[in-house]
């Protein structure tokens, strides 16, 4: 690598593991960061995947928004950093 590259991707890459648990696509939802209060489309969260699970961080303040760990037959979901999640439901 010639230039230092951040080790993160973004929340888009968590779409599959979240859709296993939720009936809607959570990456298109807007979360409110519990630390700085900003509104974040979860697809735009900074996602760190070099870990036993995935860690989503606020692109504004870097606080942890969510953590997801997928085990062989279960998922652990920690939504500690999301004060609120707004999901668009246009057809209902």
């Amino acid at each position, binding site marked *: *690598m010639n*230039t230092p*590259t*951040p*080790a*993160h*991707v*973004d*929340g*888009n*890459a968590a*779409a*599959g593991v979240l*859709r*296993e648990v939720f*009936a*809607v*696509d959570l*990456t*298109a939802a807007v979360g409110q960061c519990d630390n700085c209060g900003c509104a974040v*489309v*979860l*697809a*735009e969260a900074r996602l760190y995947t070099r870990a036993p699970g995935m860690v989503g961080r606020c692109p504004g303040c870097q606080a942890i928004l969510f953590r997801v760990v997928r085990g062989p037959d279960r998922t652990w979901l920690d939504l500690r950093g999301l004060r609120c999640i707004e999901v*668009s439901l*246009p*057809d209902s």
Partner: protein
Amino acid sequence: MARAAVLGRLTWRVGEVRALREETPTARTLILHVPGWPGHQAGQHVDVRLTAPDGYTAVRSYSLANSLANAPDAERVELTVQRVPDGEVSPYLTRILAVGDPLEIRGPVGGWFVWRPDRPEPVQLVAGGSGVVPLMAMIRTHRAASSRAPMRLLYSVRDPEAALYREELADLAASEDGPEVTCVYTRAAPPGRSRAPGRIDADLLAAATWPPEAGPSCYVCGPTGFVERAADLLVAAGHEPARIRTERFGPSGGSR
């Protein structure tokens, strides 16, 4: 089409490799038949799972490259995979996987980085390296749905050899209502190019992309560093951050 209405539980499906297309020396397109495929939209991706004989699994995300708009085969899935040196999954997919092999996928997933052909506003696509894959799905959907939305692609790639979909992009760009395509090179440009190889900058953006006054929707996909830079340049040029959608796949040479 996969509207976000009532979705069943997301499960793994087994597709069959129907054909393989070498795109560059280090990238190839997997053409899969996936029975029961629910359809997908341009920009969505799938997860691919490989399982070793000892049960160890590796999951990676890959963007869908094909358009299902007016497509004769609704169970066709195309993924273009760039080989990552020392990768765990992409060397298998680009070297060993053969026609007739099964492949486990789940999806489509991701409802944010999506373009729908009923959108009338201009579209600005900005791709770095293999980040062109989901944008190619948008270009193909634009064509297949006969969209009149004016579309431009700015494609930054290492050198001409590394460019994906070169001939198809040239053909589309030459066609009526086709996208305007600008290719720029970071390491080596083809002979006769006035612009020296280098990263994208504000001058290039001003010359080759929609101005903010045109009100385009912007889609930026590529390695994380490229996306951050391109998105910052678009915002600095006056584009509204809310009109810029991004997808990052990590260090250059990343998985999608």
